[in-house]
């Protein structure tokens, strides 16, 4: 039985007290003495030659301190890309420059051209309106397939084309895959779009740059998921500031979803301008600005083929995907459609042959990068949709065709270069069929029919790879960073503990779950433990939070550091109790000597560490503080099965999600309540993608869904009460906690279930011509599908 606070307890989130009472300290709450404000002039054209920028009138406006243009960044580096992908022929991707402020050309609506620094935000905006930018408009590159045709206008003139890379995976298998298709009993083909999304965290991005001339130190306060990564990228590649002169602080952050991983121009600008002017410079994004400057997500166009034998056993998979990079390479953009996508194409199935081709394309749109799931939702969606289509074509039950192809023996090496350490896909599928009451569907279908509604049942499985690792491997794959995590466990003299972690919390609940682990290891109240994160000045260099890595990688680092602490504390205890170190046990906050009634409280030993009057100084140093860096041996592989039941209004095409069930295997779980919350949030985002959200550009590269008046965010009443189960547990075999990660599962696993359910509803109602509808399944699209050739 879990205690009410240790591993396995649904401890209430301690951070919520400040979040829910307005006591959070977000970047926009930071206002420094003498602070100035910046407003950016952003391009209203998607593509054009920037022939000149006249800032004379703006410079004379009241309150204006200085106006910057691209020319002011002579000698300053561009925004770097953190991952280099190698193409099918072994050549590096095409990697264009990404200036902080546009030079020579503007390449997307929202591209920053100039910046006014003034004493108030309103005055900065007033002056921006007085800047005149001479832009000769060029034809916009918007459609990915047209962009790679010879003769297309080029986003970057210095590149040979708009093709960033043409990636084949695994290239050596290509011919074998083609042969398998040539001889297949049945081939199911599906063309689909993974719709472009805007992350829309509740808190827009903010940056405050500060500079102290007397010691030459720069500080950046920013809305980031990974302050150390920003320090490294901005310091080393953009502004040439060594780490010891650059501090990056990411305080409370109001949601990230991936879009706050990346290093953005506004961060570099504020840091640079603060140094140039000698006063703090602050930027706060408006929601409108966020739509044209935050990295977008997804935006793939895919053709997938699945070859099957007569029994429905998968023989081979072949895909061709066009992946939108936008106008510039955002920090980790090249990795998303490749290593975070191609490696997941086996899914939960033992398909022996797989070939994935991805063409990454530059267009005159906002850069695209990781968004909750990052590549894995795209892989899951196409695979689980084509399987459903194959089941229809072969007259098989959607659960049965999956069951027949499940991987059942672990470890399992996929044909796409990863090794699943553990899993039990039958267990999660059976759990799903039980909690979703599939057997009761016919009754619910009849009830829907009686009120004039169509009803459908859709299920799918998913697998994801979390805690991307190890560093040595990802380095070979093109990552320009390590992917370890760090923690320092500092025990104070009276026994309290502070953990300084490189993981960043922006809603995940680290301040609650991390202490649960330490409390469990030592046997002390979690109230004695604090978590520090988000400030490069007081935490060891860590890689931050994304890819569902915090507990699996950051938590493991913390466990390693705590193990070192406990080992040392036991030495001290052994000395104090005049016992052998090997006989010392620690439980419930007490050190005992095996086979005796000797005991010492945790606090007695920690005090001795700092007041070493009676202490083995010849063997160990005073103090009780240890740091660990943990580089995992492998990814973790959470998996599960999801099911959606929808009703469709046959008169309007409106879809309502009536039931949604999720059976996940996350391995061991620290806090089941927080895990359920993560799944709930992910499901809401996945249902949002499936039914509502759509980031659309017109042919001129204008963003037509540039506000919440046209970009449909999921609201509470768009989702049902979820049925979430995570009792199926196959612990990860290679990290100390046996944990896998749960942050992205909901967003990865849910879109195919929704689409499968809607297609099922339409087909049951006689619209058997419908085999696919592209997301979002808006009422108008569903109505059009019902009425096309029907």
């Amino acid at each position, binding site marked *: 039985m879990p205690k009410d606070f240790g591993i396995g307890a649904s401890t209430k989130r301690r951070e919520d007290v400040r979040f829910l009472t307005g006591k959070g300290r977000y970047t926009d709450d930071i206002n420094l003495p003498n602070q100035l404000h910046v407003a950016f002039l952003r391009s209203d054209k998607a593509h054009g030659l920037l022939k000149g920028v006249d800032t004379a009138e703006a410079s004379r406006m009241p309150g204006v301190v200085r106006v910057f243009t691209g020319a002011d960044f002579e000698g300053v580096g561009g925004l770097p890309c953190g991952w280099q992908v190698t193409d099918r022929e072994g050549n590096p991707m095409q990697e264009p420059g990404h200036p902080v402020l546009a030079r020579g050309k503007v390449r997307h609506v929202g591209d920053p051209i100039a910046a006014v620094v003034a004493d108030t935000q309103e005055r900065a905006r007033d002056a921006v309106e007085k800047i005149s930018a001479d832009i000769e408009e060029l034809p916009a590159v918007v459609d990915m397939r047209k962009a790679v045709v010879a003769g297309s206008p080029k986003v970057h003139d210095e590149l040979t084309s708009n093709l960033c890379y043409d990636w084949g995976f695994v290239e050596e298998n290509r011919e074998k895959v083609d042969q398998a298709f040539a001889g297949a009993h049945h081939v199911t083909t599906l063309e689909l779009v993974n719709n472009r999304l805007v992350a829309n965290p509740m808190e827009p991005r903010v940056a405050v740059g500060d500079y102290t001339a007397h010691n030459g130190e720069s500080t950046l306060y920013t809305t980031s998921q990974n302050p150390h990564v920003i320090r490294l990228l901005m310091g080393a590649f953009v502004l040439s500031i060594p780490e010891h002169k650059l501090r990056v602080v990411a305080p409370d952050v109001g949601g990230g979803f991936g879009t706050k991983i990346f290093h953005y121009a506004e961060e570099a600008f504020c840091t640079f301008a603060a140094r140039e002017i000698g006063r703090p410079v602050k930027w706060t994004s408006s929601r409108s600005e966020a739509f044209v400057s935050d990295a977008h997500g997804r935006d793939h166009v895919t053709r997938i083929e699945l070859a099957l034998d007569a029994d429905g056993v998968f023989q081979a998979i072949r895909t061709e995907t066009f992946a939108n990079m936008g106008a510039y390479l955002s920090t980790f953009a090249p990795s998303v459609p490749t290593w975070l996508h191609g490696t997941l194409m086996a899914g939960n199935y033992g398909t022996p042959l797989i070939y994935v081709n991805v063409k990454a394309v530059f267009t005159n749109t906002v850069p695209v990068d990781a968004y909750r799931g990052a590549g894995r939702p795209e892989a899951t969606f196409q695979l689980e949709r084509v399987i459903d289509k194959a089941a229809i074509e072969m007259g098989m039950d959607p659960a049965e065709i999956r069951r027949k192809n499940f991987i059942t023996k672990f470890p399992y090496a996929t044909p796409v270069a990863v090794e699943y350490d553990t899993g039990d896909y039958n267990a999660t599928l059976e759990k799903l069929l039980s909690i979703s009451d599939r057997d009761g569907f016919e009754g619910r279908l009849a009830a829907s029919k009686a009120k004039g509604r169509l009803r459908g049942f859709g299920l799918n499985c998913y697998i994801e790879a979390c805690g991307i690792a190890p560093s040595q491997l990802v380095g070979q794959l093109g990552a320009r960073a390590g992917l370890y995590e760090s923690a320092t466990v500092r025990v104070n003299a009276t026994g309290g503990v502070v953990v300084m972690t490189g993981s960043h919390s922006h809603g995940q609940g680290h301040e609650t779950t991390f202490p649960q682990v330490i409390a469990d290891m030592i046997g002390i109240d979690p109230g004695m433990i604090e978590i520090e994160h988000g400030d490069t000045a007081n935490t060891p260099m860590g890689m931050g939070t994304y890819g569902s890595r915090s507990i699996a990688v950051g938590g493991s680092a913390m466990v390693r550091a705590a193990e070192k602490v406990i080992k040392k504390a036991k030495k001290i205890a052994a000395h104090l109790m005049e016992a052998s170190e090997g006989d010392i046990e620690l439980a419930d906050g007490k050190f005992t000597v095996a086979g005796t009634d000797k005991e010492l409280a945790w606090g007695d030993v920690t005090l001795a560490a700092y007041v070493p009057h009676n202490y083995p100084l010849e063997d160990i140093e005073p103090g009780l503080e240890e740091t660990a860096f943990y580089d995992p041996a492998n990814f973790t592989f959470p998996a599960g099965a999801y099911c959606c039941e929808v009703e469709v209004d046959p*008169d309007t095409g409106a879809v309502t999600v009536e039931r949604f069930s999720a059976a996940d295997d996350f391995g061991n779980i620290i806090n089941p309540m927080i895990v359920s919350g993560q799944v709930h949030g992910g499901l809401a985002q996945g249902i949002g993608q499936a039914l509502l959200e759509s980031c659309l550009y017109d042919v001129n590269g204008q963003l037509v869904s540039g506000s919440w008046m046209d970009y449909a965010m999921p609201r509470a009443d768009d989702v049902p009460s979820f049925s979430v189960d995570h009792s199926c547990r196959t612990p990860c075999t290679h990290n100390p906690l046996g944990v896998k990660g749960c942050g992205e599962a909901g967003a990865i696993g849910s879109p195919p279930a929704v689409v499968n359910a809607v297609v099922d509803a339409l087909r049951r109602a006689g619209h058997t011509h419908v085999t696919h509808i592209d997301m979002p399944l808006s*009422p108008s699209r569903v109505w*059009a599908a019902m009425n096309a050739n029907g």
Partner: protein
Amino acid sequence: MYAFDIAKPATLAEAVQAMKTGEAQALSGGQTLIPTLKQRLAAPSVLVSLAGVGEMKGVSAKDGVLEIGGAATHREVAGQRHYPGLAELAGRIGDPAVRNRGTIGGSLANNDPSACYPAALLASGGSVKTDRREIAADDFFQGMFATALEADEIITAVRLRVPEASNYQKFLQPASRFALVGVFVARHADGVRVAVTGASEGGVFRWTEAERALSADFSAGAVSGLKHPADGMISDIHGTPEYRAHLIGVMTHRAVAAAS
């Protein structure tokens, strides 16, 4: 937003006077105007807040006509019991924050092509009272965001004929939750009126073909066979003209079924 002065008249006479100054703009709830100002899409020199004008408050019913002060909020309209179909419509505009601020006068003066009130006024029949005249409902709406109001004219009250039966059906645009198509059906002693919002490039309009059919036979079956043409319907990312035209039929059918 750009800097502006604000006037807070307590009487209609003061409000009329304030509207004559500079680039004055009436503020009546501001649920559209304030976001517009924040985006710097408008630059009035004076905002004349109508919230404190005593003559523009209140709701009263007399001889089958409901008179609502121009500054009455959606919440107040939702709370009146004289005209249930209108109360239901008002109670589903926006969210509670919008309904506590937004006003019927402000909404009608703005005449957003997807707003709800224009359909109610047009289907009810009646008039718009201003600081200088009374404008018949049928003459008030003149296309998207266009009305018969002069630039400085203030809606002081709205007079609606209370029908024998009525219902409003709104199909939500998924993002804004304004009406993608909204249909207000009102059965009066002298005939049925059907007003459609959200659908047309010309703004709110009456579907006369449905009105004729329903005046002869007020039943859902009477409009089952009717199809509104797609010509002139709005085309955007949320729906084609054909889809909107189809929804007009569906929503009309449902409104009649609910009202009968």
